[in-house]
């Protein structure tokens, strides 16, 4: 909750970015600074996924997660990435002529500024959040356990809900606690803010050279504004990070189906491996992507299927150490309650589960028009001739809907209803993935069979854009205006123990405070000292701000309080006077 915690978290995320960009450079050689900047969001999420994988492996092998091991791990990952990139005869960074022509048009600037304001508002809302139910019950204990002990204790995991849930996020949380200087679960909400910014940057970066701004800008903003994602964007659960990784993985596979650039498939593998180490549903949605890719490339199956299957298998292999570990430790399985074939004993739940998922997926209040637009985009792309891309998106929609329904169908203890807020958490991942695919599908629909390479046409569209200075001015004005307006309503608050210290008010009762201590035994020692020297009525009690206070309460006036203080000073006590709001 301090500036120091925010700075520490920012530093950590910069390290994650450096790690991810380095790993990405090993997969896809750098072409220019602009190109690196364009894919920084992808690099960031690759960094998150890579760290999920390596930190989980370290936990499984008994390597403690501490600042030193994290620093070494990050250095090794980044170093290996850069080394590998150089070995691939990468010629290094080329000087670029600056931003792509026409990028900062005024229209684009308005959308960029709006997205920036959206994230500033999200930052402000997240910074002082309280913790939700499952965070207290499951995510926080795991993160704190790794933070305090450096490792995983099977007995502790077994005592918590979801003991076999993968430890990718808790490991990152633990590292974040180290970066912040304490187990500050409140400020930890901002870690999810960084993930959200990284996701938005990744989608924009991947599509900006392929999709004309007039399509890309509004559709990405629509994706970010989906109310249910917005509401849960920083809630410390695993669902939204899972959605980011799966959505980006799906988008990369879609791009690979179109462009067949190997780096897209390798990057998707890392992201899907990270998704599997975020939540168990990661396996389910990765399988949906694999099946959708197999269906979409059926005609070229000899060339494509081995690579797609290898992608799925490699992603699963990244999560395998965790699965082996929790089985060896005899932790409860993460399989459905009735086993994988138990669904056939509950056929009565089949249709209600599907109906629930479909009804939720097309709930305007949760996702606005995104799923509807996805279906329209799939149809339009298909009609326009982008068959494989449309089939991939359609097959993903179908498999993800069936897969989401299966999670309810196969767990009879789950209510088939929206009351517990579970179904939208599951459906959010396919909603994000479909939303990320819409801009490319619509671009393909617009292009039709014209035969002009997308990049050329988009480049021409960019060339018609407006003055850079005005556009940049619009972005800066929006980014400056929002904080200025919020600060005008009152500066940012940083809660501290001092919040419980109230200045005495004439005419009201006061308390003479002999001191604050971090623990009650220390406070009681001070209380006993005060009692010994005659300050009857001295008490030690929690102060309501995380400390123990030693005080004489209910003193009738400031004047009497000052007399007590003067007496206390004669016996080497160091008292102060405060308002007694309970007096």
């Amino acid at each position: 909750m301090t500036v120091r915690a925010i700075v520490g978290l920012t530093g950590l995320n910069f390290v994650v970015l450096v790690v991810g960009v380095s790993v990405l450079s090993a997969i896809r050689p750098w072409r220019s600074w602009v190109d690196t900047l364009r894919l920084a969001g992808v690099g960031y999420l690759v960094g998150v996924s890579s760290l999920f994988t390596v930190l989980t492996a370290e936990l499984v092998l008994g390597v403690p997660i501490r600042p030193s091991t994290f620093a070494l791990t990050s250095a090794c990952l980044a170093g290996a990435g850069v080394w590998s990139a150089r070995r691939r005869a990468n010629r290094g960074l080329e000087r670029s002529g600056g931003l792509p022509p026409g990028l900062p048009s005024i229209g684009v600037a308005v959308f960029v500024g709006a997205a920036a304001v959206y994230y500033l508002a999200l930052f402000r809302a997240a910074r002082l959040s309280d913790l939700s139910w499952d965070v207290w019950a499951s995510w926080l204990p795991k993160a704190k356990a790794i933070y305090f002990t450096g490792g995983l204790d099977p007995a502790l995991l077994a005592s918590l809900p979801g003991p076999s849930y993968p430890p990718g996020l808790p490991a990152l949380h633990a590292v974040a606690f180290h970066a912040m200087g304490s187990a500050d679960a409140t400020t930890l909400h901002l870690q999810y803010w960084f993930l959200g910014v990284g996701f938005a940057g990744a989608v924009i970066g991947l599509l900006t050279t392929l999709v004309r701004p007039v399509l890309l800008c509004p559709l990405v903003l629509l994706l970010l504004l989906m109310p249910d994602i917005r509401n849960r964007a920083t809630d410390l659960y695993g669902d939204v990070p899972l959605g980011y990784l799966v959505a980006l993985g799906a988008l990369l596979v879609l791009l690979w189906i179109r462009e067949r650039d190997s780096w897209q498939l390798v990057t998707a593998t890392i992201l899907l491996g990270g998704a599997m180490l975020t939540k168990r549903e990661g396996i389910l949605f990765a399988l949906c992507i694999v099946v959708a890719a197999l269906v979409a490339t059926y005609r070229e199956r000899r060339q494509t299927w081995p690579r797609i299957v290898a992608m799925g298998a490699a992603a699963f292999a990244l999560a395998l150490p965790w699965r082996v570990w929790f089985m060896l430790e005899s932790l409860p399985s993460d399989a459905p309650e009735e086993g994988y074939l138990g669904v056939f004993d509950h056929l009565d739940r089949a249709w209600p589960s599907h109906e629930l998922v479909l009804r939720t997926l097309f709930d305007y209040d949760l996702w606005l028009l995104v799923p509807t637009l996805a279906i329209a985009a799939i149809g339009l792309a298909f009609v326009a001739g982008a068959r494989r891309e449309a089939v991939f998106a359609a097959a993903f929609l179908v498999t993800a809907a069936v897969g989401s329904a299966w999670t309810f169908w196969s767990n009879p203890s789950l209510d088939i209803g929206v009351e517990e807020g579970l179904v939208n958490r599951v459906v959010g991942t396919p909603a994000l993935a479909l939303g990320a695919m819409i801009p490319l599908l619509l671009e393909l629909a617009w292009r039709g069979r014209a035969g002009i390479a997308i990049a050329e046409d988009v480049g021409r569209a960019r060339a018609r854009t407006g003055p850079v200075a005005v556009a940049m001015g619009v972005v800066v004005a929006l980014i400056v205006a929002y904080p200025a307006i919020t600060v005008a309503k009152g500066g940012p608050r940083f809660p501290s123990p001092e919040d419980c210290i109230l200045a005495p008010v004439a005419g009201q009762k006061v308390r003479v405070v002999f001191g604050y201590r971090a623990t009650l035994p220390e406070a009681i020692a001070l209380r006993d000292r005060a009692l010994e020297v005659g300050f009857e009525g001295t008490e030690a009690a929690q102060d309501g701000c995380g400390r123990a206070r030693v005080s004489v309460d209910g003193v009738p006036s400031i004047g009497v309080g000052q007399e007590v203080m003067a007496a206390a000073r004669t016996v080497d006590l160091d008292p102060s006077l405060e308002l007694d709001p309970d007096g």
Partner: protein
Amino acid sequence: MGSVVASVGQWPEGIARLGVVICVAASVLVIVPAFVDALDASDSWADRNAALDYAARSVPYEEAVGSQRVVEDARLWMPEDATYRVVTAPDLQGPLQWAAPAFLTGFLLPRRQTDSPDAPWVFCFGCDLAALGEGFEVLSDDGSGVIFGRTGR
């Protein structure tokens, strides 16, 4: 632009392009109110979160642990290397029975929860205090049915 307009109505390119235009127009129409809603909601959450006190932000819910006051007292009493156990009444139902242990774990780490009767610190959720032994010292009891104390061992 002229060729684009002229192509509308042609199958399939024109129809696809018309569809794209409709999709983008629909998204723009949705974005404006959604953006205003998002800022309003964020503002509202920011105000609400800034107004939270220490207990609301940093101590588990009463619904899950029975008493915020008692569990905060427990945190202030126990050293960081302490072990504690949770003793519940046999007929205890609801969140105190199935949620409290996990919530206490999350709140009190690095202090460790254990099942061992040798643990020197004890949470009692409606339990029989006599069963905790004669030397059991109540350190926090706010009348909610949740008691925290120390055994005589």
